């Protein structure tokens, strides 16, 4: 008994020392994969830990709203905070200027996320169940050094300059290049630094390509050229410790080309704007006023495994907490029968009276 106990403890000690010797921005995942943070703690939770190293993440843009930029900015900023080298390509004339808009870690938003725990004794309506799951999840991530791994990034506070003036940021403009060969060479050069070899991972890199195949680029009508670029990028990334995030506008591509890109993606997300005054939707969803858009998770990377990741929900609302922090929440559909639902909701939240007031959703 005693011997097994010491064995167990020494084993766990080894593991923890292994973890601590690792880079703070890395986290061990299942099946021999390693996660890096997406820069949004909610998205990390949804994906089961973050983006896997060696995976290709594709984000389908909404043609009418720049929500993909929110994801991209958090992703890039988190990498820079972890001193992970970054390669950023965009169709704008001066991609480096975009680095000035990256968010910086702000004061913690924990006060709100821990708030609902005191409601445990109450009978809570189904739509508030998500608050129960959350504190436990928080504890889990806190064990692995939650704040080292993923910062709460304040979108209104620009990142300090010294993070990106150093030479670990490479910016490429893809506006005027006639084809993707130059970008491919840059990516290959960047990826070569992180080629995977046996043993521990010392550092990780990030590649962010914004609005790939947007019409400003001269190659935007060469679909096969773009597909083969993404395919070779994926092939190279697979053998290196890098996460590649590519955003693309699917509405500007032919449907078959867009489907091909979706098949190539290891993790596939899409963002959608919601119209400002959609009465129907506002009636259907609680907290509609705070939403800025919707996030869809179509596919979660399954490297080294055949088991698909089935999420509880695939659609999440994008909200800006205090107009600063990006959060994703499960959608709360209001019950169709309005009167019954409202009494439920009221008893759950304030537990004052069962008499329903006027609906607030």
């Amino acid at each position, binding site marked *: 008994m005693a011997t097994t106990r010491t064995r167990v403890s020494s084993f766990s000690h080894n593991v923890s020392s292994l973890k601590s010797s690792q880079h703070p921005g890395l986290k061990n995942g299942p*099946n*021999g994969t390693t996660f890096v943070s997406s820069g949004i703690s909610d998205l990390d939770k949804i994906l089961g830990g973050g983006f896997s190293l060696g995976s290709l993440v594709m984000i389908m843009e909404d043609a009418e709203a720049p929500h993909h930029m929110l994801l991209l900015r958090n992703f890039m900023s988190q990498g820079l905070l972890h001193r992970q080298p970054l390669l950023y390509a965009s169709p704008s004339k001066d991609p480096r200027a975009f680095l000035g808009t990256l968010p910086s870690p702000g004061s913690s938003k924990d006060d709100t996320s821990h708030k609902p725990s005191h409601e445990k004794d109450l009978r809570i309506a189904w739509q508030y169940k998500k608050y129960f799951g959350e504190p436990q999840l928080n504890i889990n991530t806190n064990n692995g050094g939650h704040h080292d791994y993923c910062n709460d990034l304040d979108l209104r506070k620009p990142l300090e300059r010294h993070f990106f003036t150093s030479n670990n940021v490479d910016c490429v403009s893809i506006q005027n290049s006639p084809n993707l060969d130059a970008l491919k060479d840059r990516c290959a050069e960047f990826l070569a630094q992180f080629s995977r070899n046996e043993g521990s991972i010392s550092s990780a890199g990030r590649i962010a390509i914004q609005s790939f195949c947007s019409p400003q680029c001269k190659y935007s009508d060469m*679909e*096969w*050229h773009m*597909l*083969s670029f993404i*395919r*070779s990028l994926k*092939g*190279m990334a*697979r*053998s290196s410790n890098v996460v590649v995030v590519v955003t693309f506008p699917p509405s500007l591509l*032919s*449907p*078959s080309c867009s*489907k*091909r890109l*979706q*098949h*190539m993606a290891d993790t*596939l997300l899409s963002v959608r704007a919601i119209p400002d005054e959609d009465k129907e939707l506002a009636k259907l969803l609680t907290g509609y006023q705070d939403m800025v858009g919707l996030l869809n998770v*179509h*596919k979660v990377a399954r*490297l*080294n*495994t*055949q*088991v*698909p990741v*089935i*999420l509880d929900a*695939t659609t999440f609302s994008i909200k800006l907490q205090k107009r600063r922090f990006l959060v994703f929440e499960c959608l709360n559909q209001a019950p169709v029968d309005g009167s019954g639902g409202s009494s439920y909701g009221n008893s759950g939240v304030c537990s004052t009276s069962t008499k329903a007031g006027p609906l607030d959703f």
Partner: protein
Amino acid sequence: MEHQGLNLMDQALGFHSNVTQQPWPLCGRFVLVEDCVDTSGAFVLHHILKHSFTSRPSSAVIFLAFAHPINHYDRVLRKLGCNLSSQRDNGRFFFLDMLMLQCPVEGKPKHDGLATVFEKIERAISELHPENKKFVTVVIDDISCLEVAANGSSNDVLDFLHYCYTLTSENGYALVALNHQDIYSDGERPAFMLEIEYLADILVKVDPLATGLAKDVHGQVMVLNKETQKQQGISSIKVQNFHFKIKENNIEYFYAGTRT
């Protein structure tokens, strides 16, 4: 009618036929697996791969990987109870890494494109131990990546598949390929898909459930087996539908509604 150790997929693919009498039910046949973005059909390849290694002591697989590197397949198959590295050392598993294959666009003759890939397959087969040559399976994962590698020239891809088909059917080898059906569903180039489907002897269609994602049921399969009954000279088509759930070490197949 209880076949021990055989699941619905084995039966649908014809693995249940008298084991001692017939060599390998997929011999000389072309299995086409079709899937879509929501539900990957890669597990069918893993299933066939495992079956070919475990059911016969002397079989060989030539694997053309356009989608994943070898360590992915190695880990997946190891959990299914099949060690690809040792099979490779035994000369029964040939892995052709096509992840970075890119055919030259123009100018150069086409000879160094897919033709070289086919030559590689031929060379791999010729290098096989004669004992292992009896039950050879050629696996292509997947055709849509092959198209991208060929710069979208679907004629080249069709030619390549015809070559592979001829090679396998003449010698009694099996050909297994994965393709994504939703790429072609918008009617842009349906001829490509139809032509491959026409070639296929067994068509395995993997779809998500119509009612959406579920934790207990990962999707549905339709297996269309164009069985040729040689003695009567007529061909019949057997269709089987069932659901599946993918686990790390096993895939469960069951009829709709039989899982509580």
